[in-house]
Structure formats: structure tokens, C-alpha cells
């Protein structure tokens, strides 16, 4: 790779990728998102790309540019079609390796080469007809054009085309009498099934159920087919010699740098495929503007990506929320009723930062943020084995780890810790820990039942998960800037049967 044609990194020497997910992935439930994305793409080994957030703003921009190009459906459709064509090529080559009969191997290879040629040409044509702006795709297209014009590629293309056409136009006849099989040239005998169809036409229904005949889907030749093929090759010896020659003389397929492109493109397509149904359901996504420092960070209408995927699959939509850090604000302290959307909100904020540092579009209508050096999280894991003291200790140990790693460029998400501690202790500890994080200068979301933390100092902002006015049992899942009020919420109202005059009358209003 002289000039390099990576779609993921601007430099010719890409940095090493992580094999294991960072700890925050599970807390943010992005592990489920990544699983879903790579589920149908196992052969590409994409996980490390998702496990390795970027720290350089330029690399993030490099990927954002590619995502922007992929926004044009012609570009993404072209690359998608190329990927599926290449999957077919690989499958054909595997078959050529495994096939038992030489005549069969020759044909698998010929078909693979034919598909490969078509895939390359279609990709070039597709990319050439689109205006590309990203450094990654422009660089790749340049290299691809040179490849397609090379003499080696062109002679491969011509030979594959010609042999295919000759083979597929060949018709031969077979007479089966008991176990005796005669292969002979086809002499224009008529289609008997057609005659049968017309005889029984009168007994056909407009909507006949077609027979679901099952033919064994094997694409391997069995020995009867192999013998018939032998017969056909004896009837046409010259053609089959040239097909064998083609396999011997053509080089390895596909070119390695084409394989790399195919794999890296799946990072983009996989993510876009994952968010496509969400977009179709009306949820907003955007590429965040990148800020050099953390004096400002915001996203409008963001949501929890993992939850949204689940809800949309059930035909529902998540509630959208905004978040904003504006200097000197460093910490969002979230309070409110149980099941009111606090955790979901915290998760959504963490996801936005993590996804942004992969270069991906983030859930939200509009966003601007710095590329963080770390996204650090601490969510309760529901380990019931720990006693209260063990839990508190675990909480504190985890916070200590976070404080050791975090810098002023980090994002820290803390969810409902200290809940097992006596209120008075929790208050003291909470103040102290939050104070240290704020002091450090990182951006922090702190979900808590401690109202007092919300008004720690001018660097903390109070957010509350709200309930609908007058309906204490309801939930809006909206998290808004307002002072924490710590009100208690009653549950459940009696059921009505909607059988008043107005209810019934309503039923018949057109």
C-alpha cells in the first residue's frame, strides 16, 4: 500500500485497535448496539473499530467526512452493492477450492472472476457518478480508477465475459429410460409442459396456490450430474479446454487493498443500517460540530440509542431531551421520580460523547462538543452478593479509579451511587466526590436521589425528570433544567369504564 487507501484513518499507518471493549460500553448499553451492528457482519471483524474511540479531532473529522459522503444514497447503495458482490465472489472462490470435479472447479473460478470484474466496474462507475468530498473516498476512488484501467484487469474481464457467454448459451438434451441416461445435442424439441398447461388451463383458478417444491439446494455436483457434464464436455471439447486454461492463468482474487476497503466500509454501513429504522421513525441524528475545548458542549433532542432501537422495533418512540454545558458549568445533577428517565438521560449523554469520538453521527438534532480523551462511567451493576459496606466500598473504589484516569478533557457519568449509604453519609460523601470531579474540570453527569447536590456551586446545574401536571402517577421522561424539589409521588388511580354519555357519544362522532 504505497499511498494508503484506508477509509478509517487519514495516515498510511493506522494506529493499533483495541481487542476488548472499554468499561463504559456496557454501562452505556452501547455493547448491545455494537452487537447488533456486527451481528450480520461477523466475517469483517469490526468490533475493534467500535472498541477504539479516537482522541484526535482530525481523525474524527476524517470519518465524519466519509459519513457525510455516505449520506448520499447513491454512494452508500453503490458500496453496499459492492460488498454483497464481494461476498458472492468469496463464496464462489471457496467453492472452487472445495469442489470435487475439475470441470466444476473451473466453472466456480470462472464465475467468481466474472462477478469480481462486474463488482469492480460497478463500484468505479457508481463512485464516479457521485460528487465525493471526503478525503477517504476520494483517495480510494483514485486508486480504483487506476486499477480498472490496468491491462491485467482488462484482459481478465474480457476472458471471463466471453467464456461465460459461451457456456450459458449451450443447451443439451438428456433421455432417461430407467437407469440408462443418454446425453445428446438438443434438436429443438418443443416444451411439453406448455402443452400440458394449456390442456388444463380451464381447470386453473385465478389464484392457484403455487406448489412449494423443495429441491435440494446443493450447489455441488453429484456424480450423476458430473457424468452428464462429462457428456456435455465430450460434445463440446474446445470450450471446456479454454475454461480450464483460464483458471490456471488468472492471478489471485480479489486484490488485498480491495478487501481492506470492503471491510472498513462496513463500519460506516453497519452503523448507518443500525440507525436507518430509527431515522425512518423520525428520530434525528447529526454529526456534531467539534470544539477544541470543553467550554461548551450541547446536544438538542438526544435520546438513548439502545433504548430507541428497542422502542422503535415495538412501534414506539423515545422521549427526546436536550443537554447543555456552558462554562463555567461542569456537572449536570439529575434528580426526580423513579422510572422517570434519569438513567436513560445519563446514558444518552455518555453515548453522544462516545459515538462522537468514533466519528459517528450521534442521536440528536444538533450537537457541538469536544472530542473527549475518556468516557468514564459508573452505573450500579446489581450485584446482590455485596453487603452494604461492600457496595459502598465498591462505589468508592470505582470513583477513585475514575479520578485517577480522568483529566479535564474527560467525560464522567455517575449513576445512583451511594444509594445504599445512610442519607447523612451519602450527603457528605456525595458533596466531596462531586466537588473533586468539578474541580478537575471534566464534564460530568451525576444521577442522584440527593437533592442537595444539585446546588453545590455555580459549576453544577440541576436537572429534574418531570411528571405531567396534576398526574403524579404519570411520567413524561423529560429531563429539564429546574431546581430539585424532592416531592413525593403517589401512584395509581381507579379505572374507568368510559361509559358516560360523552364517552359513548364520542364513539360515534365521525
Amino acid at each position: 500500500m504505497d499511498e494508503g487507501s484506508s477509509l478509517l484513518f487519514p495516515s498510511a499507518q493506522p494506529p493499533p485497535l483495541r481487542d476488548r471493549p472499554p468499561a463504559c460500553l456496557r454501562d452505556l448499553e452501547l455493547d448491545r448496539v455494537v452487537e447488533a451492528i456486527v451481528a450480520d457482519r461477523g466475517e469483517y471483524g469490526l468490533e475493534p473499530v467500535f472498541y477504539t474511540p479516537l482522541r484526535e479531532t482530525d481523525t474524527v473529522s476524517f470519518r465524519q467526512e466519509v459519513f457525510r459522503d455516505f449520506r448520499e444514497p447513491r454512494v452508500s447503495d453503490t458500496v453496499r452493492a459492492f460488498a454483497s458482490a464481494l461476498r458472492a465472489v468469496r463464496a464462489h472462490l471457496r467453492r472452487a477450492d472445495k469442489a470435487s470435479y475439475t470441470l466444476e472447479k473451473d466453472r466456480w473460478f470462472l464465475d467468481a472472476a466474472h462477478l469480481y470484474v462486474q463488482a469492480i466496474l460497478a463500484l468505479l462507475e457508481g463512485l464516479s457518478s457521485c460528487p465525493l468530498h471526503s478525503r477517504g473516498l476520494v483517495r480510494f476512488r483514485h486508486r480504483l480508477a487506476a486499477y480498472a484501467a490496468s491491462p491485467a484487469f482488462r484482459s481478465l474481464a474480457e476472458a471471463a465475459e466471453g467464456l461465460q457467454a459461451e457456456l450459458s448459451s449451450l443447451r443439451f438434451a438428456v433421455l432417461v429410460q430407467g437407469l440408462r441416461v443418454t446425453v445428446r445435442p438438443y434438436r429443438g424439441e418443443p416444451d411439453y409442459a406448455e402443452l400440458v398447461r394449456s390442456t388444463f388451463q380451464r381447470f386453473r383458478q385465478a389464484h392457484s396456490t403455487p406448489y412449494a417444491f423443495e429441491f435440494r439446494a446443493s450447489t455441488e455436483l453429484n456424480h450423476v450430474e458430473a457424468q452428464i457434464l462429462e457428456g456435455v464436455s465430450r460434445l463440446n471439447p474446445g470450450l471446456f479446454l479454454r475454461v480450464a486454461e483460464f483458471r490456471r492463468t488468472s492471478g489471485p482474487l480479489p486484490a488485498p487493498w480491495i478487501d481492506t476497503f470492503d471491510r472498513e466500509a462496513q463500519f460506516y454501513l453497519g452503523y448507518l443500517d443500525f440507525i436507518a429504522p430509527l431515522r425512518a421513525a423520525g428520530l434525528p441524528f447529526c454529526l456534531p460540530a467539534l470544539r477544541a475545548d470543553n467550554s461548551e458542549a450541547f446536544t438538542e433532542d438526544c435520546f438513548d440509542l439502545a433504548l430507541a432501537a428497542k422502542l422503535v422495533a415495538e412501534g414506539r418512540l423515545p422521549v427526546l431531551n436536550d443537554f447543555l454545558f456552558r462554562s463555567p458549568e461542569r456537572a449536570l445533577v439529575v434528580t426526580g421520580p423513579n422510572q422517570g428517565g434519569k438513567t436513560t438521560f445519563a446514558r444518552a449523554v455518555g453515548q453522544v460523547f462516545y459515538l462522537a469520538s468514533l466519528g459517528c453521527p450521534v442521536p440528536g438534532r444538533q450537537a457541538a462538543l469536544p472530542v473527549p480523551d475518556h468516557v468514564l462511567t459508573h452505573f450500579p451493576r446489581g450485584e446482590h452478593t455485596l453487603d452494604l459496606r461492600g457496595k459502598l466500598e465498591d462505589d468508592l473504589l470505582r470513583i477513585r479509579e475514575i479520578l485517577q484516569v480522568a483529566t479535564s478533557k474527560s467525560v464522567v457519568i455517575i449513576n445512583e451511587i451511594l444509594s445504599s449509604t445512610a442519607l447523612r453519609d451519602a450527603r457528605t460523601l456525595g458533596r466531596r466526590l462531586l466537588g473533586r470531579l468539578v474541580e478537575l474540570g471534566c464534564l460530568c453527569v451525576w444521577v442522584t436521589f440527593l437533592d442537595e447536590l444539585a446546588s453545590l456551586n455555580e459549576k453544577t446545574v440541576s436537572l429534574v425528570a418531570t411528571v405531567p401536571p396534576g398526574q403524579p402517577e404519570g411520567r413524561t421522561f423529560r429531563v429539564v433544567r429546574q431546581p430539585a424539589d424532592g416531592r413525593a409521588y403517589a401512584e395509581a388511580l381507579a379505572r374507568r369504564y368510559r361509559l358516560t354519555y360523552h364517552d359513548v357519544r364520542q364513539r360515534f362522532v365521525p
Partner: protein
Amino acid sequence: MTPRLLYPDRDSDWRWALQAATVRAGLRAGHRTAPPAGFDPSAGLPPNADDLVRDLGLQPLLEAMAGEDDLVFEVSRRLLLEATCADPAVVAHRQAALADCLDNPDAVLELYTISIEAADKLKGRYLGVLARYPDWVLRESVVTLTALLDSLRRLKSAADRHAPRFRSEVWKRFFAALRQDLEDSYLSEVQACLHALRLPHGILWSARLGPANKPTDFLLHPPPEGPRSWLERWKAWFRRGQDGYIFELSPRDEGGVKALEALRDRVLASAATAVGQAADHVRDFFSCLRAELAFYVGGLRLHDQLRRRGYPTCLPSVHSTGYNLSARSLYDPVLALTTDRAVVANDLEVDGKRLVLITGPNSGGKTTFLRSLGIAWLMAQAGLFVPAQSFAVSVCEGLLTHFKREEDPRLESGKFVEELRRMRSLVDLATARSVFFCNESFSSTNEREGSEIALQILDAFVEAGVRVFFVTHFFELADRFRARRSSSVLFLRAERDAQGRRTYRVVEAEPLPISYAEDVYQRVFGPGAVSVPAGRSG
């Protein structure tokens, strides 16, 4: 070829009917067989079907129609329940067909017999999993069609004999189609083709090389004929080897034999589909014919029984608009067939009114009256005759029953809640063209609450144009409607004769107060205490 005896523009759901009949036959015989795959017992039925059967007492009516014939039972049940929403065109179609059936019962029974015999010939000819193999489908279909050719010939002959005596377009079209589609020359041609498709001398096919050099794009060619003379066999023996590449499988080469069969399946797929679909169609045609005739056979049987007991029947007039309802000598056919006493018949003239309030003493014939009206309405909308001397009705879209349920002990705790919930789900089903039959609704609570709830619902119904027949013993409710003197309410009362005896007749009359005060007073002060005046007088 389709019978089109039940709908002018489509086939009936005969598959469902046959499956339902099989399930019912199994249940009656005490088998516990699994229902057929994909069979939905409630397909096509309105959501309140079970309520209708229970509240109107349809089970004995259907049994009277069906006798021992499960198919007649299920077809009639489905059509009667489907008729809660009626299409006047379908009603006219069936009335015309039914009139011919009543004139020619023997011809209809002959056709029904032919269709049953055709079905019997196919018993055990179900392909099942073998339907996946073209070779099997072809063989089975050739056998099936050969067997059914005979039934088709008999059907054609019956059509030739009976057609002149049928007057309705429904039957004329049916007979004409049979005569046109089944002429003798065509049936002979089919027979010849079926013979050739037994493929006694092997098959000739051709193909091209597909991916992996596997044969693809198969064409079946006319089957080779057997060598006719010694000379031809001699010549064939001489030519062998020159004509092409020959190989022969050993009979012990199981894999090879299977592979050859697989190729045969591919080659035969297209022809097998054509013959298979033809066989399916002819079989389906007889099944459909059988299921559609079943409805008229049931009608004939019921008609015959009522007539023999001396009860009148008539073909009703069914209007597509308006709020008409009039009946003369309307009676409950179930009661007519099950009691030896003469059943009371009622006359009714509703004339545009939305709400009919029926009051009167217990066991005075209110429920029977409500049932007889509901049954007649359903039968009319199903295209059947009705148990009355004359009957005219404007179609409804949804016939909904809300009868009190005192026999269900499970609901003891929340009976009123259950009533409300049931009413709510009926309201959700209703449209402005629906009709409600309410029998003592909300009687599981006290009169005041029950009346208040009923009043609100009924007001909303009447305004929306929903028709309601409401049997109640709540004087409070009836009296509030009486006091309004509304033109959209009709009052009926179960009658007592001069001696205070029940006549079981329901006549137009305003509600009478029942002297609760009297009872209460007596209960409080003991029997024999001086009575207080009771409410208004009638």
C-alpha cells in the same frame, strides 16, 4: 369454474367450513384430535359471536338445520353469525337461490350427494409432505383427476336434466358454466393427456449449464413413445452410442438413483404444477360446491320441519337504508320445534323508532320475544326465510347482544363491573348502523344506578342513530323516557289478560309502575300494615 351460490362475486370460505366440520365431527365422536394447521375457529365470525349464540339460543336452531351433518352446521353457523353485518346484494342473491331450492329440493339434494361422493373418492389422497416432490404431485394428480372425471360427468348430466326448472340467475349461471366447461370432447382430451402423463417410456428433457456447471433451465419434451416394431428396435440398437454419450447406473448405486430422481423432479416441476393445480382446482370446486350447497340443504331441512308443524315462513324484505322494522306473526323457531304447545306469535311495527323499551312482568315472554326478533333479523340478513308470516327490516351493521348473565358463578364478585366491561367492548364494536339487543342490562346493581347508566348510554345511542331493543324491569328508566314523550321511542309491554294472567304476547303499551313502596313498607312495618299510595298510575 366456481359455484357462486352464496356470494355474487366471490367464493365462500369453504376451506374453513370443511375444517370446522372436521373439528366438530371429532368433538362429537369424542376424539381429541389436534385442530388442522392454520385453522382459526373464529375466522370470519364477529367478535361477539359467542354472545350471539348464547343470548339468542342459536345452537338448537343450527342443530335443527344440520341434523347429523356437521358441514351444514358449521356453514350455517358461520353465515348466520357473519350476517350481523349484511350486504343487501348478497341477501338478494341468496333469496333468489333459496327460492329455487324450495321449488326443487330433490335436485339440490342430488347435487349435494354428487359433491359428497366426489369428496369421499379423495379420502386418504392427501399429499401432505409429499407435495414437495413434483414426481409425487404429478402421479397423485393424475390419479385424482382420473377419479374426479367421473364425478364431473355425473354433475354435467345432472345439470342437463335439472337446469330447465331453475329460474334464478344464480342457478342459471351455475348450470350454464357447467355445460360450457365440461363438454364431452374436452373431457376426452383431458383423459388422453392424463394417460400420456403416466410416462411409461421414460422422459426426455433438455437443460443449460448454470452456475457451478449444474444443469439449469430445464425443459420437459414430449415423452418418448415405446418402440413400435421389431425394425425400430433393431435400428435403435444399431444407433446406440453414435447418438450421444451413454451411461447406466447400477441399481445398487443408491446415491445415483436419488440424484436421478432429483433431476426428474426438477424436470417435471412445471408440468406437475399445471396438473397439480388442475387437480386442486377440481377438488376445490367440489369442496366449494359442497360447502355452499350445505347452507341451502340446511335451509331446506329447517323449512321442512317448520312447515310440517304448521308454522308459517316467508322470504323477508330487506332494505338497505332507513329504520324500518315490521313483522306479522313473528315466533321463536327454536321454541316452535321443541315444544308441543302452540308458540305465541307477535306482531310488531317499529316504523322509524330508534329505541324500543320492553317492560312487563317476569316470565312474561320478553326474552322469547327479543330472541325471536334477533333470530329473524339474523336469518333475514343471512338470506334465509324467516319464522314469521311477513317480515321487513332495514339492514344493520353489527347485531350486538347484552343479556344479563346470572348463571355464571365466577363473576359473582364483580357482576356489575363485568356488565360494564362487556358493554364497553360492545360499544367499541358498534357503528351508527348497529342494533343492540339488551336484556335486563345493568340489573346487577340497584335500580337508581342502573337506570342512570342505562339512560346515559341509551341517550347517546339514540342520538347517534343506533337502534336498541331494551328489555328492563327498571320502572325508573322506562318512566324517564315516557315522561319525555320522545318520538324516537316505542314502548312495548308483556301483556296480562283481564285476570292478570300472562299471555306471553308483547303489545304496544307504556310501562306500568311496580309498587316498590308497598313492598318496602310492608317489609319495614310487617305484613298487614296500612299501605301508602304508590307512585303514578299507568
